[in-house]
């Protein structure tokens, strides 16, 4: 493939949206109340919309006869480049919110940089995405505050979720080969530039939510290079079920 680095770079961003949308899709109809159920479905829909735009673009530049669905459904697990954070399960509502908050904070900063990319398609997707992701971030930060500063029980649960998920935050800033090359070319974003800002901003909201900021020495990584947690295989089993069972059909 001529544009292999660009292709991989797009998937690095898009796979996060796909897998998080999939996780949120599991919750539809099971939320703590109707309003949050609708809001989480909305976020899932936004992410899925972004995923489609990225994959359509990736399919186009692949130079092969690929479609967005081939990219979404017909890769092996090791070829998915999402970070480990987004594949973490919906253990309880604290985890759903914690995962969303830790991802949204990163995602918004990424979109804000990506909108200035000289690659017009990426810039356009990012520009549209900023509006959506700003809303996601407002929703998730508000809930972090509500749960953190709500009751004793909710504080404990929100803290538990943040402690569990913090382990996966460092990977957000791990740069793959494709990301390094694209950042050097000025087309992609050098994500290391906003790592400090990310942790400052996230910590500030956690403190406002009367939560303590974890002080991990060790972090997990691997997702962006295709080495996922054990959860990923089951996500794949659901995601790919139809395409694998009934190959080469139109739906």
């Amino acid at each position, binding site marked *: 493939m001529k544009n292999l680095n660009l292709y991989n770079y797009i998937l690095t961003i898009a796979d996060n949206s796909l897998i998080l949308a*999939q996780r949120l*899709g*599991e919750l*539809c*109809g*099971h*939320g*703590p*109340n*109707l*309003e*949050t*159920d*609708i809001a989480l*479905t*909305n976020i*899932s*829909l936004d992410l*899925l*919309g972004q*995923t*489609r735009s990225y*994959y359509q673009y990736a399919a186009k530049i692949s130079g092969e006869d690929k479609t*967005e*669905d081939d990219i*979404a*459904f017909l890769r092996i697990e090791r070829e998915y480049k999402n970070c480990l954070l987004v594949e973490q399960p919906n253990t*309880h*509502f604290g985890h759903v919110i914690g995962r969303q908050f830790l991802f949204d904070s990163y995602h918004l900063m990424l979109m804000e940089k990506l909108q200035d990319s000289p690659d017009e398609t990426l810039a356009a997707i990012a520009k549209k995405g900023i509006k959506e992701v700003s809303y996601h971030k407002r929703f998730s930060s508000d809930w972090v*505050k*509500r*749960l953190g*500063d*709500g*009751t004793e*029980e*909710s504080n404990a*649960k929100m803290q538990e979720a943040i402690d569990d998920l913090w382990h996966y935050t460092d990977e957000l800033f791990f740069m793959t080969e494709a990301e390094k090359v694209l950042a050097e070319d000025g087309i992609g974003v050098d994500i290391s530039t906003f790592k400090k800002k990310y942790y400052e901003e996230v910590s500030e909201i956690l403190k406002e939510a009367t939560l303590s900021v974890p002080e991990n020495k060790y972090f997990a990584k691997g997702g962006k290079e295709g080495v996922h947690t054990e959860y990923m295989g089951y996500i794949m089993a*659901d*995601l790919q*079920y*139809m*395409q694998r069972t*009934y190959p080469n*059909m*139109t*739906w």
Partner: protein
Amino acid sequence: MSEKDVKNLEEIFEARIARDEKIEPKDWMPEKYRQTHIRQISQHAHSEIIGMLPEGNWITRAPSLRRKAALLAKVQDEAGHGLYLYSACETLGISRDELYEQLHSGKAKYSSIFNYPTITWADMGAIGWLVDGAAIINQVPLCNTSFGPYARAMVRVCKEESFHQRQGYEIMLTLCRGTEEQKAMAQDALNRWWWPSLMMFGPTDAESVHTEQSMKWKLKRKSNDELRQQFIDQTVPQADLLGITIPDPDLKWNEEKGQYDFGEIDWDEFWQVVKGHGPCNKERMNARVNAWNNGEWVRDAAMAYAEKNEKRKVAKAS
């Protein structure tokens, strides 16, 4: 208020309905009108919420990104319908929590169709085509019902349902134009959903207990049997166009009546499911009760946080 006064009010009330005027929440209304509307509107709202479950079951497994997004959006619409129907119901002086309590305790009913399992992707098509199709026939007359908030909610619900129905039919059409396996999947879904869809119109007129009063209040404009007939007459040609067969050997066009004759509905099955012993009654109810119970700490936290914030605001102002 004397008995005579009440009788007088009732007459004025009935006359307003007869003139097609809308009854609004603050207007005087007979207690029976209020209770009947709470029962029907909440039953409708519960059906929307329970109805999210069989379709939600396929969101993670939808076969393409386009279908996944459309299904998510559809299930979200149902949540939205639930939301405005609960709100319409609340104007009659009952809270959403009380309505949930009635659902969870089994006191309130919901549409039995959602107690059937969704076991293949074609069920997403069949539900849209048949179940939403039947729902529209039941619901369109409600856009002109006498209670204002319900009528207005139904205008919006019907618009969206009609979109869902077309979407479901389009899923069926894609399957029927596909491979043999896909067509077999579509036929199997029709076989399983056809009779339960006919049951959505309720018992036969001879068995239906609420019809007469509901007609007077415009909660109903046509009888169960008339609506069922309308559904069959409208749906048979659509099945023909798909090239799949309705699972009723007695189904045939009656030239004289200008409508289809059809076979006997299995009313034992109907009552079995209504009484709580259908294939998924327990699963649906457990899913709802679990969502509610697991969400309690979240709702409590939101309440506690709102109270703290209010206090902080007051403290700041003083």
